[in-house]
């Protein structure tokens, strides 16, 4: 016989949950007492509930398991909202347990009461309010099932305090299976459509494979790589898809979209066949939809039917799990007598190589690093070199995020952890905490800026408590860089509220106060040595405050309202 609180934690254990990120408070105290009295589920005490959601989210992104969050009612719940929205936009499986005021007080504006189910409704895949303690095992089972299947997403379980009270106990049994009659996520794709898709790809003269976060989430990276190599077709990844195809491979064109590479955007624009896998034709990818890839037939594979033809109409839509569809495609390609048109593909590669030679960011530096200043791009290249390209990289949001996406060539999936859809500043540091919790011996670095890092900087304290030696690579350009870039390009350099007027903290002293190590880098020639010094301190949190060129912009940058191929290539040069 178990109380509701004990049942909840037992159910988490039986679901295979080992780590919960959270913060206690009144309505959750019965649950916290249940946590105290067991060893199976480890709780990580964050310093702000937003960080709990980001940490659980990144834990999930780096492992493929469902992240788990526990917060109290009212402000605990509302603080979790930004992180839930972040996970929702990037389709990350997560379960958020929120305490609620006792059942009979609900609706009376009780202390720390907020309608969590209502507030979170537009940013969750589903939510539950527990009304009877006996329902806890089934609700937990359903929540994890919903969160991780189909198109994954966050699920909220709101639990009134009386439900978890220690006095009422019930028999406990965790269900082995769950069936929800109104929920049947897509699995296999339509065989006829898959056949048509393979035919279109084999007939293509100028094919491109465009892969998104769904390939990472859907464990389709190896299959995608096999297909691309078998066909010798070029691959581009979205921001969320980086690592789905090896970044250092010859067939990889780099990221596409607003800050995508010249060759990726040009190849997309001129393609005659596009295989879109687990990507959603986001506005940061397509630029103006009516000018998007005018000559291409589009195959769109997605587990979510609502993603298909949402913004760009698919010629061959395939609803299904990415791994299942790709393995069927690969089998058909292997058994097909028809091979890709070798001469057409050769011509296509010659064209792509010409684009690379002319403006590609990997064939030569397309920024001026001849001066005294440290260029942000060089920081990322040095980071790649020092970590052997094998670190988990989390990032915040802004210029540093784009530089990291462009220059840290991810060879494996689940190594690049960033807030793509929502663009949540403050994500990076708690995300690094979540990743390090999941991979205690791995190298985890958070690429951030002096703006973003201040949004969840309080987690330096949690990193200390749990001995999580993440490395923080701060590209300090003394400004909200991406805001300032747009102000340079569109507002005649009127820097409205993007500068701090000498108010930045001394990050080195701050690190000292938290019991961590701070390293300041101001000279170009000392960058690499200091970064090596940073990563040599394997058991310490180290913050590298790197003074980078304050005026640098991220390029290429697509020109708004135009097609994929219309880009600024530098401050003065455009296509």
């Amino acid at each position, binding site marked *: 016989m178990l109380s509701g609180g004990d049942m909840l934690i037992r159910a988490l254990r039986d679901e295979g949950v080992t780590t919960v990120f959270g913060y206690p408070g009144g309505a959750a105290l019965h649950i916290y007492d249940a946590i105290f009295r067991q060893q199976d589920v480890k709780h990580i005490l964050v310093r702000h509930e937003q960080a709990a959601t980001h940490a659980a989210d990144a834990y999930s992104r780096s492992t493929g398991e469902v992240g788990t969050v526990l917060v109290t009612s009212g402000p605990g719940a509302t603080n979790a909202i930004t992180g839930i929205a972040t996970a929702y936009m990037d389709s990350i499986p997560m379960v958020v347990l929120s305490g609620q005021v006792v059942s009979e007080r609900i609706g009376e504006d009780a202390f720390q009461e907020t309608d969590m189910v209502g507030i979170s409704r537009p940013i969750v895949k589903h939510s539950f309010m527990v009304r009877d303690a006996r329902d806890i095992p089934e609700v937990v089972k359903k929540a994890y099932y919903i969160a991780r299947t189909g198109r994954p997403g966050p699920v909220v379980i709101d639990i009134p305090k009386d439900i978890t009270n220690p006095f009422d106990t019930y028999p406990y049994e965790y269900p082995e299976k769950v069936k929800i009659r*109104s929920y049947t996520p897509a699995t296999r794709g339509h065989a006829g459509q898959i056949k048509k898709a393979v035919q279109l790809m084999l007939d293509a003269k100028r094919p491109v494979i465009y892969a998104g976060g769904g390939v990472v989430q859907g464990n389709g990276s190896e299959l995608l790589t096999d297909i691309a190599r078998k066909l010798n077709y070029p691959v581009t990844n979205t921001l969320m898809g980086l690592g789905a195809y090896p970044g250092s491979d010859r067939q990889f064109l780099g990221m596409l979209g607003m800050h995508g590479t010249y060759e990726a955007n040009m190849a997309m624009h001129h393609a005659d066949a596009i295989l879109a896998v687990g990507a959603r034709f986001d506005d940061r990818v397509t630029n103006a939809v009516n000018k998007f890839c005018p000559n291409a037939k589009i195959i769109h594979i997605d587990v979510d039917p*609502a993603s298909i033809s949402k913004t760009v109409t698919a010629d061959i839509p395939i609803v299904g799990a990415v791994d299942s569809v790709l393995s069927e495609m690969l089998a058909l390609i292997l058994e097909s007598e028809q091979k890709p048109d070798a001469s057409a593909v050769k011509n296509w590669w010659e064209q792509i190589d010409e684009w690379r030679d002319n403006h590609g960011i990997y064939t030569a530096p397309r920024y001026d690093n001849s001066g005294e200043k440290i260029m942000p791009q060089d920081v990322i290249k040095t980071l790649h070199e020092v970590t052997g390209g094998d670190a988990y990289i989390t990032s915040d949001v802004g210029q540093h995020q784009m530089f990291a996406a462009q220059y840290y060539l991810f060879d494996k999936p689940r190594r690049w952890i960033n807030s793509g859809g929502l663009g949540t500043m403050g994500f990076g540091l708690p995300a690094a905490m979540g990743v390090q919790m999941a991979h205690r011996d791995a190298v985890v670095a958070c690429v951030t800026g002096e703006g973003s890092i201040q949004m969840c900087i309080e987690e330096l304290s949690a990193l200390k408590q749990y001995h999580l030696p993440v490395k923080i690579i701060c590209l300090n350009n003394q400004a909200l860089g991406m805001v300032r870039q747009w102000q340079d390009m569109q507002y005649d350099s009127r820097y409205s509220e993007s500068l701090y007027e000498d108010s930045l903290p001394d990050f080195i002293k701050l690190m000292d106060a938290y019991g961590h190590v701070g390293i300041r880098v101001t000279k170009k020639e000392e960058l690499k040595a200091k970064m090596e010094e940073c990563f040599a301190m394997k058991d310490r949190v180290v913050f590298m405050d790197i003074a980078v060129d304050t005026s640098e912009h991220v390029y290429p940058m697509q020109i708004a309202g135009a097609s994929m191929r219309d880009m600024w290539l530098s401050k003065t040069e455009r296509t």
Partner: protein
Amino acid sequence: MRRIISVLMENAPGSLSRVVGLFSQRGYNIESLTVAPTEDETLSRLTLTTIGDDHKIEQITKHLNKLIDVVKLVDLTEGAHIEREVMLIKVKAAGAQRAEIKRCVDIFRGQIVDVTASLYIIQITGTSDKLDAFLQAVGDASILEVVRSGVSGIARGEKVLSL
């Protein structure tokens, strides 16, 4: 184009708010909405009318289907169907008006369900167009209050929306 979408969903707390929330969240329009439990009390039947082109309606039905509480749905306007709406209307009916309004009710096959010395309450059932036409015939000057149920609908013939 006006569409009637009929939804079979779990009769559970919060189900309706998810459907309504979806429409406001994604900028879709709801013209009318009616919901009640079915003969199986674990299920509710919700009928809504909305306006949009094919692309928008496709998105609406896909997103509705994604809601965990939605079991099944059908766009009734895709095939032959019957639609009905009930309207209760309170009108001024004094002097010469009384006979005039009574005649109008008869023409529209409505019923007078309550009478006082100075007013009628009329019940009319039919398609939304018919109800609109009746309101026009009676005229704004006599109308005191109008209550419409929203559209309910069912497919003609063999087609059944059930588990």
